[in-house]
């Protein structure tokens, strides 16, 4: 008879004092926690603000004994998070899900908040001496995170208002690079319409892609079903958030309205 315990001790709730808060600009901050974590790039944690709520956040970096997430104020939870100061105790569960599985020469494409997990990804790719290119998009220069970090690695930038890099969609940068160079894999994280465009690009180029999806999450552990995609029905919290091309082909609501906290299909596509 095998063990009877569900214990995966890191999945239990632990509160930790915030060790450091990095201010990027109003409503965009990184939070560093003193905990040794062996998260893979693309994995996420469930972050609990006691008395408020708990939401999924991608790991934006892991350094020895520390884990960092980066958040943008968009609603009640993320605004409450902006008020958290060093020493405040927040709850962390995780890491959860399946992250990026690096392979061959990569094209890293990020948009908006989707840039956060890619930071950790490129740190890992660099460490593994992988060959890769980076293109990133945001509305404005101000909203572009970790510019110094990414510039050092030769990233190209696109903004809606032209305040940093080219004034175009990041997907245009990605398309051009794909015409000029040969890649084995497109890594992508950002708004779902951007991901849809990347998927098409990968299909056309005949290369694989690994795109990180968001769905409404409650448990993070593959139980509640609120993050399941239509079509294949897989759990984004457990088998995602990073899906490959073949898996994306079976996501019936990819780029379409998906489900809210009740489980009903909602009309507006999710933020990202």
């Amino acid at each position: 008879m095998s063990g009877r315990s569900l214990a995966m001790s890191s999945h239990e709730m632990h509160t930790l004092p915030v060790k450091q808060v990095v201010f990027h600009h109003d409503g965009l901050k990184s939070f560093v926690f003193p905990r040794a974590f062996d998260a893979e790039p693309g994995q996420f944690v469930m972050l609990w603000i006691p008395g408020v709520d708990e939401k999924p956040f991608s790991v934006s970096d892991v350094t020895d004994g520390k884990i960092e997430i980066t958040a943008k104020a968009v609603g009640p939870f993320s605004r409450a998070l902006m008020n958290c100061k060093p020493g405040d105790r927040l709850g962390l569960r995780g890491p959860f899900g399946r992250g990026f599985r690096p392979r061959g020469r990569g094209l890293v494409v990020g948009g908006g908040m989707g840039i956060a997990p890619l930071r950790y990804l490129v740190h890992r790719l660099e460490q593994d001496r992988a060959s890769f290119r980076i293109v990133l998009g945001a509305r404005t220069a101000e909203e572009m995170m970790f510019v110094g970090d990414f510039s050092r690695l030769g990233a190209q930038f696109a903004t809606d208002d032209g305040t940093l890099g080219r004034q175009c969609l990041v997907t245009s940068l990605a398309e051009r690079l794909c015409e000029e160079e040969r890649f084995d894999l497109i890594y992508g994280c950002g708004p779902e319409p951007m991901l849809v465009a990347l998927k098409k690009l990968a299909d056309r180029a005949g290369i694989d892609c690994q795109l990180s999806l968001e769905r409404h999450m409650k448990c993070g552990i593959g139980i509640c079903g609120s993050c399941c995609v239509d079509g294949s029905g897989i759990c984004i919290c457990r088998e995602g958030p990073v899906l490959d091309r073949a898996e994306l082909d079976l996501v019936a609501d990819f780029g379409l309205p998906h489900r809210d906290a009740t489980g009903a299909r909602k009309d507006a596509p999710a933020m990202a």
Partner: protein
Amino acid sequence: MSALAIRLAGIAMESPLVLASGVLGTTASSLRRVALAGAGAVTMKSCSLQPRAGHPAPCILPWGGGILNAVGLSNPGAEGAAAEIAEFKRTCPVPLFASIFAGSAEEFGRLAGRIAGAGPDLIEVNVSCPNVQSEFGIPFAADPDACGRVARAVKDAAGSIPVSIKLSAQCASLARMAEACQRNGADAITAINTAGPGMWIDTGTGRPVLSNRVGGVSGPAILPIAVRAVYEIRKAVDLPIIGTGGVSCANDALQLIMAGADAVGIGSAIYGGGIGLFGEINRGLEDFLKEGGYDSIGRVQGLAHREDRP
């Protein structure tokens, strides 16, 4: 026919394993996925007449002995649920059990009628969810008379669709509850819902972690309670039983079957084992039957009720 095939309240199932309500059960797509993984039937998340968002997170918490949950019965409402049922039935041959909850026998009846129209293979009646007691007053699952009225109302509305009443171990007498269900026309009993309730306090902040403070206890921690509950119900009535609670391996499933269950629900263990668990447990049951020389799972059902002296 496979040794695992059973008939439950007239429904043919390829395996006695059933996906328990509330786990991966909101959408046709996720239910189909579990069905393809080897479940003999899948149960939907309980639905109410109107949509509910449920409690804020944290509402589901693994704690080492199982899971605490106070999801608060979030669901897309009867409309939404009916649409998922219809889509599932269109695309998947595995039996689908709907699950319903309401605030009164009358409302249960109305909801059952609405859901019956969508054509599920069985309607499970959740009279026992601990997360909404304060909203709906005394739990039906602790009061045989109230529970009997609910069973009768659902039965009247469900037409030819069989009805299973889902009981909780938190009552004075499971035998009396089961008898009330049988008297009022129930075709089956599901037991048990979550135990407890329980609370988990984060000692770093001194706060209960669940936003609802307390939540139902499920997973390995409750297996012996579920086994005892099924044993008591089997002693009291001869309705088919969907034994549920804490199952995470074939041996656990066998305990419930030997206690008297016809089918076995699996929920929380999917956290540890993923949906591959259904295939694994099916194989484990088959191996057990083969080694013991049994030609069908029915042969070991209720074995624990044999007279005890050797």
